[in-house]
């Protein structure tokens, strides 16, 4: 057995000779970083926020709101409300919670550590805005226990009411942080570090989510008007994200046109509604039978070109919100409505000569009652939000019932038993696989969560 000791000695020598790196060095990925600067985190947040507007939730809201319809494959099923737990899985997972919201949390935590109120303010602004959208889509969502990593591997779902309150509080904190706005070192692809413009953006977002609560909060409209007073006042000052023209950096709706051709087209009813509207040629093109929202290389189609300019919240929306809030508080909304429609026309590149008649003919609502005024405003917003703000058309519809739409005749199914126009998006399969107890509790708390169950705010 003396050979045994020889061999062990030789073995040890052999190993040490061929081991110039320690195990720990070896098991460290040389192609990735263990920490990054804030300026390198922010670009992802802004890009993802804009990308989401033309991604699944945007397109799905467009389908539900009958601006789009499925022509082929999955989009056909969506058109008749066969919208299962797969549909939003990617959006929920890598688009939002483990994507944009994750990065907002990382940025906000880092900013707090390093004392940069600019980055914490912007992180909170976007985070609040996206949580607001998320709750409007799904109702109760993980919020107060979310994004805590190993601290909480099973986040529970907060009620929609508390999420909206949290969103508004977060926007207030953002505005406060941005008031000092220190420590900017790059990465702001939208305002290049202009904190004042971010404050105006946060105020506009506050107005949006205050109006989301219009059915639940008697002072929603006056709250919104107060927020709007500090919001931006022109298209030029809205937070616009400019996509690139190549398939690697283009706008998501342009991507969908290119990569999933002919699966989604303009709904005929929407095409008819836009007949005679100066914006029709900017929104769609026809081959005689079918209207398309996308055509390869067609630069006229401003909402499906590759290098689209996408507002995170637009001046158009601010003015429509203002018009509705004015109407609901008993003031004449006509001027705000005219400004909203005008901004919508200018946003798609039309000249005054193209739209002046349309604005004149559609903005004077002074003679109408409040409900008619609201109806007109929301119907105009439906046209003015096309292409970049589908979610707010759907929120408006769920809240006000305008414009009047007829549900798809084949729209009754296991996901949407009553067959009406969907009132929420379905929870995702990933949560069902990993967070089932909390998900079940959330469903129970809302009286179910199929597509035909309204969310609390819009009930």
């Amino acid at each position, binding site marked *: 057995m003396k050979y045994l000791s020889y061999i062990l000695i030789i073995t040890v020598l052999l190993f040490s000779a061929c081991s110039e790196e320690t195990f720990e060095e070896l098991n460290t990925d040389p192609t990735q970083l263990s920490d990054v600067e804030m300026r390198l985190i922010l670009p992802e947040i802004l890009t993802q926020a804009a990308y989401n507007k033309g991604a699944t939730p945007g397109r799905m809201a467009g389908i539900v709101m009958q601006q789009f319809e499925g022509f082929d494959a999955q989009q056909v099923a969506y058109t008749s409300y066969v919208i299962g737990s797969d549909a939003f899985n990617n959006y929920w997972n890598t688009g939002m919670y483990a994507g944009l919201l994750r990065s907002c949390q990382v940025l906000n935590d880092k900013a707090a550590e390093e004392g940069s109120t600019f980055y914490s303010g912007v992180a909170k602004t976007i985070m609040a805005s996206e949580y607001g959208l998320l709750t409007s889509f799904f109702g109760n969502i993980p919020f107060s226990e979310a994004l805590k990593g190993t601290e909480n591997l099973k986040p529970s779902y907060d009620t929609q009411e508390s999420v909206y309150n949290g969103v508004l509080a977060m926007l207030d904190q953002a505005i406060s942080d941005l008031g000092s706005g220190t420590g900017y070192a790059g990465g702001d692809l939208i305002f290049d570090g202009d904190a004042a413009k971010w404050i105006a953006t946060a105020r506009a977002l506050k107005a949006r989510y205050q109006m989301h609560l219009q059915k639940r909060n008697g002072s929603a409209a006056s709250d919104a008007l107060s927020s709007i007073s500090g919001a931006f006042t022109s298209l030029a000052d809205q937070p616009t994200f400019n996509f690139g023209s190549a398939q*690697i950096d283009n706008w998501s709706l342009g991507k969908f046109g290119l990569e999933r051709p002919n699966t989604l087209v303009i709904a005929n009813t929407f095409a008819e509604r836009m007949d005679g509207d100066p914006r029709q040629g900017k929104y769609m093109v026809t081959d005689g039978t079918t209207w398309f929202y996308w055509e390869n290389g067609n630069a006229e189609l401003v909402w499906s070109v590759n290098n689209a300019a996408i507002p995170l919240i637009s001046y158009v929306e601010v003015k429509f919100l203002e018009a509705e809030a004015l109407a609901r508080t008993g003031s004449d909304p006509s001027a705000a409505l005219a400004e909203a429609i005008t901004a919508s026309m200018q946003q798609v590149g039309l000249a005054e000569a193209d739209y002046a008649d349309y604005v004149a003919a559609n903005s004077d609502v002074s003679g109408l009652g409040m409900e008619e005024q609201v109806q007109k405003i929301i119907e105009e917003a439906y046209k003015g939000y096309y292409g970049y703000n589908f979610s707010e058309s759907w929120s408006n519809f769920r809240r006000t019932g305008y414009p009047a739409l007829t549900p798809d005749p084949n729209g009754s199914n*296991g996901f949407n038993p009553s067959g009406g126009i969907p009132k929420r998006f379905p929870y995702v399969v*990933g949560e069902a696989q990993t967070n089932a107890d909390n998900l079940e509790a959330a469903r129970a708390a809302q009286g179910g969560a199929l597509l035909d169950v309204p969310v609390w705010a819009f009930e």
Partner: protein
Amino acid sequence: MKKLYLPLLLVLFVVGFASAQRTVSGTITDTEGEPLIGASVLVQGTGVGTVADFDGSYTLEVPEGSNVLVFSFTGYAQQEITLGASNVIDITLEEGVELGEVVITAIGLEANRRSLGYTVQNVDAGDIVASKETNLLNALSGKVAGVTVTSSNGSPGGSSSIRIRGNTSIGRSNSPLFVVDGVPIDNSEIFTNGTSTGGVDQSNRAIDINPNDIASVTVLKGPSATALYGVRAANGAIIITTKAGKEGKPQIDITARYSVDEVNKLPARQSLYAQGRPVGGVPIWRGPETAEGFSWGPAIADLEFDGSEYAYDQNGRLVPAGTGNGLPARAYDPYTYFKNGNTYDLNASVSGGNEFMRYFISGGNLSSTGTAPNADFERTSFRVKLDSDLSDKLSASMSANYINSGGFRLQRGSNVQGVMLGLLRNTPTFDIGNGKEGQEAADDPATYVLPDGSQRSYRAGVYDSPYWVSNKNPSTDRVNRIIGSTSASYKFTDWVNLTYRVGIDHYTDRRNGALDINPGRSDGLVEQNFISNTDISQDLLVTVSKNISPKIGFSSTVGGNAFSTDYYRHNATGTTLSAPNFYHISNATDIVADEIVNRKKLYGVYGTFDFNYDEYLFLNLTARNDWSSSLPKDNNTFQSYSASLGFAFTDALGLQNSTVLPYGKLRASYGVVGNDAPIYATSNYFGGALIGGDGFITTIQFPAYGTNAFERNVGLGNDQIVPEKTTTWELGGEFKFLRGRLGLDVTYFSSTSEDQIISVQLPASTGFTSVVQNAGKITNKGWEIIFDATPVVAGDFSWDVQANFTAIENTVEELAEGIDNIGLAGFTSTQSVVIPGQPYGVIWGDGFERTDNGDLVIGADGWPIASPDKQILGDPNPDFVLGIRNSFSYKGLTLSGLLDIRQGGDMWCGTCGIMNYFGVTEQSALERNDVVVFDGVTADGQVNNTPVALADPAAGLGAYYRVRYGFGYSEMEIYDTSWLRLRELTLSYNLPDAVLGSTFLKGATISLTGRNLWLKTDYPGVDPETNLTGSSNGFGLDYFNQPNTKSYSATVQLTF
């Protein structure tokens, strides 16, 4: 070494000059003087041989230069006789001792099979080469109990996966370790151009081993057999021994094969209805220019051509019958796309040696074309193996194997740029071949490009025409690989031996993939990948072998192993191509580059201790300790160990001479093998930011917009991981009955894999989507039965049977707290998953609502209701698999067939679902006018009696049965894959000495082989031996997979 070359070169030139030979004759008897009818005599190292006739006599022409005869007979010890002056050799064979077959066990040790307390199974060279498979894995199919092989498709160079005793690991590879001449080699399948569900299928790297170089394959099935390899053989091991030279004059072998492949099974299509959909309640024809996807148009019989100028059909557009030019519309068969593939395989070797040095040198070239136009695969290999005895005490050997392999591969799977997607969805009224078929159509650009430069396909380029795919979406790979090893052994005394062995497996793989500009649809893409992988393994071991007492034998090997792997991949992806038909990165406008570096080291110290008592009771103990760099620093070591006991009760009881049961052995073993963690799983990282979250469109990858950006990875690191552990016990027995004419080897095993290291999905609301953690327990229990028999031996005729039976019951016992489902592979709608209490890999997806007793719930409108929750839909694990080989030989003629039976096992035919959706299956035509009442109950519990029309144009396309539930509804497309197939059928003929006598040949064999000639299955898609996700852990998924093939081949084998 210079001295070596000269004789080798001479050998190559001196071939075949000797033709003088001698005739040897004699009788073969047993110890009692009875003739052994059918006993065989072979001239060693040649194909020359004969069998003893009724009186035990034989006559044999022995070629000049050969002087060793090998006598053998089932149930008797083999004997080798070196010829002297006499031409008469009478021989007496002794019974029983032939069972002392030598097998290779872990770390290259040799053992006498009878001394093992666990099961191992050998496949010899003949059985591997006879299957005429390019991929070594496929050549093992049906030949080893406990082993299942699945080829992912029939493309040239296509991947295959192999499992020994089922799937044990959820997160890690379930593929066994491959070892060639003591050197572990890489068998990974690296997806680059695409993913596991779409893109290009790549080869698994064991394809680089030329089956013609193999002398034998030993399959080590359980931890008792593999514990010495430690973590790397947690899933068993395939031990390959290559051919070596033998002392004697140079022998040259040349083998040439030609095979023809054809597609063996395709889904049945309809030819009755045209492209189109209902518009305003009436099915109308909508031609390719509308990009219409559906074939829910009018009946073809009701249409005719209008003779107009039309880019998509020379006869014009389709119009209702009576309104055109009278030329009736017709259905075209898109399956004419497939052609015959063929394979040329040429191998040559020279071997021989003297008392100091033996050599074996070989070269081979295999060249295949696919059944899809332009697909091909080529492999060229050279191998040199030298064994030398440098002195009485020092011996050394060295081998080097160079391989150059690669091919032209076609896109497949979930991929609008894939062959099968555009082919199977194609509408019956569009002629994708434009009047031509197969290669001829593929070679004519007018088939797939319109005069205006845009794509000619049934949806105007939305889905690529398969002919476009063959030409415009190229993907090539080129592997250069060296596998080399050197070992030296020093014998200190006749019972102590020291060996050092180092082996290197290094390859580079250069891949180029492209999607050409598809005008109006896509701006094109070029993807380049450079991959390099280097595995180095060193062993130093000492073997001691000494009897403790006359009755107690002892041997032991103790050693250490150092293993390192270094994988590097550089990727450059370019988009927006400038010029068509130019597939180089310089043609791209935007380029993104990336690199991956994966490194790991593993050190092990091991020992094996064998005791035997009187050569009938055997005890083996092994232990190994590993240290792995991928485990957390403070907990990076783990142990593997085993104990096994073999008891040859026939020998203990002195029954060796019994005619009924001359040999019987009982085995019992217990073993534990560990498995380490994936690399880099212990910490959190920030990687390049990706903008995504939409399954329909591509991501945006930074750098973009003039800046770079990073994001925290969605995988949560874990520095608390402990190694996985698989514990197996097995009981078994080997029995030889009736003088060895009947053999049975039965094994029952039970294995439990605990502390599974799994990338567990987290609720994304935590900010992470997964964490690597110890979470799960899987059990596998099963029977492996090997049966062999020689039912008839009469004169020159003999009939042999060998059967391998495997039945494995696999259960996922538990997953970590709060986790009820982990996806292995697939799509969000249909996946292969693990769920506690279920078999591994069950198919999970969209299904209908059912009552508690399983009835369908039917809505008031008469339609079944889609459940909002996903369900378990099927179990892809077979109940059992059985391979039965029957061989009949008469003189030099042998007929052998391998029947492959698989019972049970479900598969999701995603292909069928989408084809039904588009209305192109035969099924969709047969049921089109049906009005049915679905079996089930309504919400109030009444039996449903509401009739529904399956495809009522008046109700609109969205109301159709095949459309209303979405894009191919999972539950409708789960099928049983049970099959019965004739996997191999071979007729071979050894030319008799009478013919060879006058030539310079020492042996010649001609054989005809059919592969997959017959297949019986109810599965409606392609051949159910298919797997979308290649060698990944998921299975039971078929989504536009490439079809499988059957083939016919002729082989000539010559020995000089």
